[in-house]
Structures are given as C-alpha cells and as structure tokens.
C-alpha cells in the first residue's frame, strides 16, 4: 500500500466502524465496543507507521465545481499533521480501552462507542485537511460528535443543556471561522493551505481581518475568552469523552488550525491572539481554585493550558542568529508554532492521564465527583494515585517531566517577546501548581470522608492500563531530542533558552512551581470543607463570582436583549410579513376564486346568458370594435 492509501484507511476506518455500529449493532453494545476499539487500535498502529515512515505527501481531488469556484478534498500530510495524528491515535486508543471498563454497564454502550468512532473520523479529517473548506466540514463534524457525546446521558437535563450550550457557543465561533474562510478565498482565490503559503510568501498582502476571523473558530473550539463558557459545562459527558475530546484532542484542534494557517498571521493579529490566550490562561486558573467537582477543576485547568498554547502561538516568531563560517545569518523561526504544538503534545498526554485518572476515581467512588467527599484514596487506589501524581507533577512543570520542557519553552518565548505576558503566565503557573496540589491533596491524602471513598477500589485492567501508558508518555513526552526524527519540521521550531536566559527561566519556573505547590499543600486541610472558603470567604466568593460572570452576562444578554429584539422582530413579522403580505396576497387570490366560483351557478339559463355575452363580445371583436 502507498502512504496515501494508508492515510485513507486511517481516515475511513472509524467512519466504517461508526456506520456498522449505527446500522447493525445498535442493540449489541459489546460488539459495538469491540469494533470501535479494534478500529482505534488500527488507527493508532497505522498512524505510527505513517509518522515513523517519514514519508510526507500532499494529494487532493476535486469534489465540486461551480463555474469558477471549485472545492476539493485532499490530504496534506506533513510533520505537523503526523505529530497531531500520532497524538490523536495514541490518546484515542487509550480512551477507547478505558471506556471499555468505564462504560461497561452503560445502557447505551453502542451509541457511545459509535460516537467515539465518528469523533475519531472527524478529528482525523481535521488533521489531514489540506484546505480550509475541508477543515471546516470536519470542524463542524467534531462539533456534532462532541454534542452527541456530551449528550450521552441525555435523560439528565444538565447534560442535555450542556450539549446544547457547547454546540451553540461553538457555532458563534464557527461563524467567524466561515467568514474568515470566505474572506480568505475572496482575497487569495484559494483556500488550499500550501497554495496560501506560496501566495503569502510571494508577497500577497494579508489583511489582519482574515487571520482574526479564522481565529474566531479557534476561540470557539479551543474555548478561549469570551467563548470559554461551554467547556466546563461539557464535563456533563462521560469522563472518557472529557479526556479525549474536551482535554486532549478536539479543543486542541483550534491550536492545530492556527498552526496550519501560521503563514497568514500578521503582527496585529498575533498581538490580539497573544492577549486572548494570556487572559484565558489567567482567568481559567483563577476559576479552577474554587471548584469542588474533580472534573471541573480539570476542565478549568484545560482552559488555562489552552490559553498557554494560544498565548505561545500569539508570541510568534523569534529571530535567531546562525553563524555560518564568517557570515552571520538572521533567521525568523516560527517559534510560536513550535512552542504551542510542543505544549499541545505534552498537555494531551498528561491531561488525558489526569482525566482518565479522575474517571478511575469517579468509577471507584461510585460516581461521586465532589472532591470534598473523597479523601484517602492514596491507599485504596494506589495505581490511580501514582499515575495521577505524575500527571499533576507534569502539569506543574516538575523538572524532567513532560510539562516542564514545554512550559519552559513558552515562558522563555514570553520573556523574550513580551514582559507583561511573561509575568501573567508565570503567575498563572503559580496558580496551576496551587490548584493542582489542592485537588491532589484533597482527593488522595488524608482519611476517607464518605462511605463511598472508604470503599473505593481500583478498576480492572482496562481502566489501569491506559493510565500506565499515559503516565509513561507524561514522563518521557518532553524529551523531543530523543523522539524519532520524523517531526523535525515542528520540533526544530521549539524555542530553546541558552546561557543566562536558560538559568533565569529555570529559576523562574522552579520558583513559581514551588511557591504554588507549597502554599496549596500547607493551606488546604483534608477536611470536608474548602479551607479557602473558611479562611478568606471574600476571596473565595469573588473568584466564584468571576467564574459566573460570563454566564451571568450571557444570560442577561440572551434573556433581556436578544429575547426582546426577537420579540420585536416577531411582532413586525406578524404584522407585515404574515399579516399584510402573506395574508394579503392569499386574500386577493381568494377573492378571484370567489368571483370565479360565483359564475358557476348550475342553472342552464344563466349559462345561456354567459353564452350570449360571449357571442356579443366575439361579434364585437370580429367587427373590430376592440
């Protein structure tokens, strides 16, 4: 098989799996699970083969032609796509296996695994897409599969509401994305990624509106301010879904898309992107501190880390000096892409690990999600405890773990490019360590505070195996130097600090981590109440209000402004459209009908008069009176 055929198999396999499940296996949950996991295994295997083979290619077919306008479907498989494909494949496989255990007794198992398959199809479509239209199609498909999976327990009102919220909020961002694609086509006459790069490098001027509109898509999908509200609510879905879609892959699709269109990024747009990312990182970290639901903490932490990636992307390129003999070349390197993708990679591993860990905890505690009702799980679920600890250490930036390297790359980039961003991100890192240690201590240390926690137990093989795999990846994921040399196009872009800068970054990152972790460790007691709420209720309530502020504002907007505007429009519609135009026209036609009906009286003599009248008119016509 050629590489292209491999790629097509990877793309279509999950679609086939989803189709089979939807058509034939709706009542056979175990068969559906088997097929879905089999497909995920094959995807992971072929993705690794494709990536490690090192062959990169591009290929496209025309799909639709309307006059001058043509749409094509195609595959662009470069190092960036290969890296993303491997992440999706590996995390996807781990989550599929985990789901086998976690969803074992679920009533709608077939629907769940079918949803996972259709998600894999959509996500791989985004990874492969060689043009923005195709990306948009799969972009909407992941939105749909996300809706399907958040909505899995649809008999629960909160889950149904959350899925709708996720879909609608995403639609807002997607609208901007679509406008951006259209503007892009209008400006350049193409939406093919490679052709776009050629045009821009050939000197085409990019209006800053285009990258900003395209960025709207990422704001929605990657849950950046001000469209972040859907992600915490999306935790209503089953935990494996949160791990796969709302932590590791789909929300990262926004970052991936930005890296794909990096050539279009003009400095003004990058500045906006940088600040949006920075604000999201800080805001979400503040919100995470006051959460008591284990998944909500992780959700806000995901938001915060996504903010990190977006900020890293927005920080943009770095000029580096290359000494070649006597001459020195200055080169611009898209370090933003490198740093963002690097953090995306490591984050995918440790965040999926922590989400699956939380799934294991929730499963062990009989679907208890409140961390203040847990405690003491260290001895009861040792494997979950140790793997989760690795995840916590990785996200905090513990030296030699995955997060350490990627976070340092971002901090170094921020230090070089923008001091305020550096300060905010460093402060966010303190908060990250703070809320993570809080979560970790309250959940796992101390003594069990409820009956469920006391009787918590480790899950079976399918629950623990993915944790171990992801823990190993979180341990080694940062050593890009030891990766197979197949992602060099991406990894050579990672900014690296040298000499004094290296020392400064190292000291900063260690300091912020230790400050955050130690203060949280000593502040929080293993008690059924939030220590912060008791010691500083003002601060606690302020953070809670900050968290709710967006929802309150949106509620106000929808209920008070949009709803009233809609009522006004409805009124106008009733009066003018429905009243005057529609009813008016139908009334005129009806009148003609009544007149015509009156002619038919059924009386012979009346018809004779009509006949006579007709003859007279005919005669007048023939004699030329008319």
């Amino acid at each position: 098989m050629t590489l292209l055929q491999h790629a097509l198999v990877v793309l279509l396999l999950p679609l086939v799996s989803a189709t089979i499940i939807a058509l034939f296996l709706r009542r056979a949950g175990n068969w559906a699970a088997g097929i879905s996991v089999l497909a995920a295994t094959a995807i992971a295997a072929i993705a690794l083969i494709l990536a490690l083979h090192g062959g990169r290619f591009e290929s496209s077919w025309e799909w639709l032609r309307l006059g001058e306008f043509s749409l094509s479907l195609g595959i662009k498989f470069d190092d960036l796509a290969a890296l993303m494909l491997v992440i999706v494949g590996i995390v996807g496989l781990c989550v599929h296996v985990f789901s086998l255990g976690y969803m074992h007794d679920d009533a709608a198992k077939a629907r769940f695994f079918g949803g996972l398959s259709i998600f894999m199809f959509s996500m791989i479509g985004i990874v492969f897409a060689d043009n923005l239209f195709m990306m948009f199609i799969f972009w909407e498909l992941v939105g749909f599969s996300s809706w399907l999976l958040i909505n899995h327990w649809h008999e629960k009102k909160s889950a149904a509401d959350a899925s709708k919220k996720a879909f609608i909020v995403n639609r807002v961002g997607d609208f901007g994305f679509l406008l951006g694609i259209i503007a892009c086509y209008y400006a350049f006459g193409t939406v093919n990624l490679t052709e776009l790069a050629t045009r821009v490098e050939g000197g085409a001027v990019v209006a800053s509106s285009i990258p900003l509109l395209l960025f709207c898509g990422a704001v929605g999908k990657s849950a950046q301010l001000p469209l972040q509200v859907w992600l915490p609510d999306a935790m209503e879905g089953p935990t494996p879904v949160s791990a796969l879609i709302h932590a590791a892959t789909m929300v990262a699709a926004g970052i991936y898309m930005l890296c794909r269109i990096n050539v279009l990024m003009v400095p003004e747009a990058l500045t906006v992107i940088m600040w949006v990312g920075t604000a999201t990182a800080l805001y979400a970290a503040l919100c995470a501190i006051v959460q008591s639901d284990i998944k909500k903490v992780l959700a806000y932490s995901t938001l915060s880390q996504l903010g990190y990636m977006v900020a890293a992307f927005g920080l943009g390129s770095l000029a580096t000096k290359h000494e070649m003999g006597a001459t020195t070349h200055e080169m611009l390197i898209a370090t933003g892409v490198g740093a963002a993708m690097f953090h995306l990679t490591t984050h995918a591993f440790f965040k999926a690990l922590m989400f699956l860990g939380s799934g294991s905890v929730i499963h062990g505690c009989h679907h208890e999600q409140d961390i203040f009702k847990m405690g003491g799980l260290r001895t009861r679920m040792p494997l979950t405890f140790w793997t989760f600890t690795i995840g916590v250490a990785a996200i905090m930036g513990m030296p030699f773990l995955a997060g350490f390297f990627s976070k340092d790359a971002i901090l170094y980039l921020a230090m070089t490019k923008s001091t305020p961003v550096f300060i905010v991100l460093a402060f966010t890192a303190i908060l990250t360590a703070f809320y993570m240690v809080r979560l970790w201590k309250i959940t796992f240390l101390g003594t069990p505070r409820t009956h469920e926690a006391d009787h918590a137990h480790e899950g079976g093989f399918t629950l623990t195996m993915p944790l171990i795999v992801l823990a190993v990846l979180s341990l080694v994921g940062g050593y890009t130097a030891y990766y197979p040399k197949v992602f060099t196009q991406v990894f050579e872009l990672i900014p690296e600090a040298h000499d004094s800068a290296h020392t400064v970054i190292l000291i900063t990152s260690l300091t912020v981590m230790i400050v955050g972790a130690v203060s949280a460790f000593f502040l929080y007691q293993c008690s059924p109440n939030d220590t912060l709420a008791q010691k500083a209720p003002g601060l606690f309530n302020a953070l809670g209000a900050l968290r709710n502020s967006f929802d309150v504002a949106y509620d106000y907007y929808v209920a008070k402004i949009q709803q009233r505007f809609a009522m006004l429009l409805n009124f106008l519609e009733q009066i003018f459209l429905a009243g005057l135009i529609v009813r008016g026209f139908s009334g005129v036609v009806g009148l003609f009908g009544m007149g015509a009906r009156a002619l038919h009286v059924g009386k012979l003599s009346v018809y004779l008069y009509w006949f006579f009248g007709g003859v007279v008119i005919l005669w007048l016509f023939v004699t030329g009176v008319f």
Partner: protein
Amino acid sequence: MITPTLNAYLVLSGLLFSIGFFGVLIRKNTLVIFMGLELMLVASTLALVAFSRYNGTMDGNVFVFFILTVAAAEVAVGLAIIVALFRKRQTIQVDQLDGLKN
C-alpha cells in the same frame, strides 16, 4: 295586390328569430325552450327562402331542404332526450335541473 318586398320578409324573419331567442333565454320549460330553438331555425330558413326568391336562384331552397331534413332528425333526438329527462327527474323545468352545481 301589394307584393311584399324582401325587407318585409327579412324583418319577419328577424322578429321570429328574436322571439325564439328570447324564448330560449327567458322560458324555464325545456319543451318551450326547444320550441324557441326550432323557431330560430325556421326564422333562418325563411330568410334563406326569401333570398332565393329575390335572387332568382335555387341555392337557398336547396339549403332549406337540407336544413329541414336535419331539423326533423334533431327534433326527434331532442324530444327523446326531453322525454328521457322527464322520466328520470319528473321535471323538465331548467331551474330545477341544476345537477352541475349541486
């Protein structure tokens, strides 16, 4: 003795035709309407005979023979229809024969 002029014949023919026409329009009895129709037919044959007489040709007369022949057949058919109608509906008043509407 006064010889009638062509105009006199034509006026008579026109009068007969009008009587027949208004009979058809106004009367309600199918039989009378039918008589009105026949009167219109006869009025036209009278005009044809008059033209024939004053032109000194036989064309009009030949026409009239044909018309009378056809009219005889038509009367037979028409009367048969009226009889059949009466048998079915027990009336031949046209204002009661409104099956097209109701």
